[in-house]
């Protein structure tokens, strides 16, 4: 049965989107990241369904966004859609608060310290978060650089097990 003949619900589309992952952190789906803001389903005059997925970028220059948009298209093409739109919405700006608890758990298992929300002084200097090591859970860790291999991650070093690790920055 083709997609045109079916009644498609938003929930169904959300479920299909759960197969799309972040290319930089492949354990996280785009739902875990909380970047899917809306799904709109429209039926055009000739009965062909059109689906619009609204996503919000994590960082302005994040190169993963193009790959994610492509992943969304591929996932929905696989379900029989032909009219697929991926829209970017800037406001409200993405925050790590939108990351699911499941996502944070997966991050830690993957070896990346998940974001922790705490009060920060935006103009503070030389301040460090007390980020626990994802391997040995020691809190004796040291910030190496606020900037990691991708915009969303900082570099840390554990003083207990001496392993370097990445921290998904609170943003």
């Amino acid at each position, binding site marked *: 049965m083709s997609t045109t003949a079916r009644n498609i619900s938003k929930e169904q589309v959300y479920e299909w989107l759960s197969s799309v992952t972040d290319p930089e952190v492949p354990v996280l789906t785009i739902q875990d990241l909380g970047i899917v803001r809306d799904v709109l389903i429209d039926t055009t005059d000739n009965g062909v369904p059109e689906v619009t997925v609204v996503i919000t970028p994590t960082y302005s*220059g994040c190169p993963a966004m193009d790959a994610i948009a492509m992943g969304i298209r591929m996932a929905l093409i696989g379900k029989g859609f032909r009219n697929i739109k991926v829209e970017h919405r800037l406001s409200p700006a*993405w925050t790590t608060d939108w990351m699911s608890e499941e996502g944070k758990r997966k991050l830690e298992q993957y070896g990346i310290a998940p974001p922790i929300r705490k009060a920060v002084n935006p103009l503070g*200097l030389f301040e460090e978060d007390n980020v626990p090591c994802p391997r040995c859970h020691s809190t004796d860790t040291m910030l*190496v650089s606020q900037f990691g*291999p991708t915009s969303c991650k900082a570099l840390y070093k554990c003083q207990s097990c001496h392993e370097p690790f990445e921290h998904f920055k609170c943003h």
Partner: protein
Amino acid sequence: MTNSKNMSIQKLLYTLQIADNALILGHRISEWCGHGPVLEQDIAITNTALDHLGQARSLYQYAATQFNALNQEEKKGLFVSSALQSLIAQGKLLDEDDLAYLRDGWDFRNVWLVEQPNKDWAYTVARSFLYDCFNYFFYTELRNSKDETLAAIAEKSLKEVTYHIRWSSEWVIRLGDGTEESHKRMQQAINDRWAYTGELVKMSEADTAMLAEGVGVDLNAIASQWQERVASVIEEATLTIPQDTWMQEGGKEGRHTEHLGYILAELQFMQRAYPNMEW
């Protein structure tokens, strides 16, 4: 020309002013890619370049939308670039890439500070520090713009700029309050960059017009916040603020130092030599 049309042109020029600062500074910083003093700092500084380029993209996309809504006469009067004039004459719509890659130096409205060469790590840090301190307070205010798109871009960008201002401020302190040699060179870099800071907070015609519309930011208010932040970091760094510097300016009116031409030659080469090529 009616007043409302005039305002749409002013808003476009205002958007380009912000976009050009982001693109040119992002390009300058990206020149460090693979050349940073240590791996972590190479990664750090190129991350900030990526943020600036990402912000430039959002702004150019918005500028292109504004441009495409103008009438033909207004479009023709905006840019000197013959490449763009030819697209306009053909009735083509412009996109973000056309604005970044096909405008000439005179069409760019970035301030002189951002086009200055990297020279060394101290000069690069000084340029970023003086600009980040401006950019942080600028985006903080622009979040309140009556223009929803500019407000949204500002809200998004501010989060990124918060990392930039911290990074560059810490480096000014690390070098200023470091060794005798690093102190001397950091001070020299601040002194030499200082002449370009007046322009950051000088109101252009577009700044004034957009402030009156509730779209733009009052740069006079930013000036005191900028001074306060810069002074506190410079003091912490055991450095001194240059006095009696003659301020250099012209970028917001399309007049530039000789450096912009070389930047554009590299930045625009592919699109100029092979129009419409894609990676």
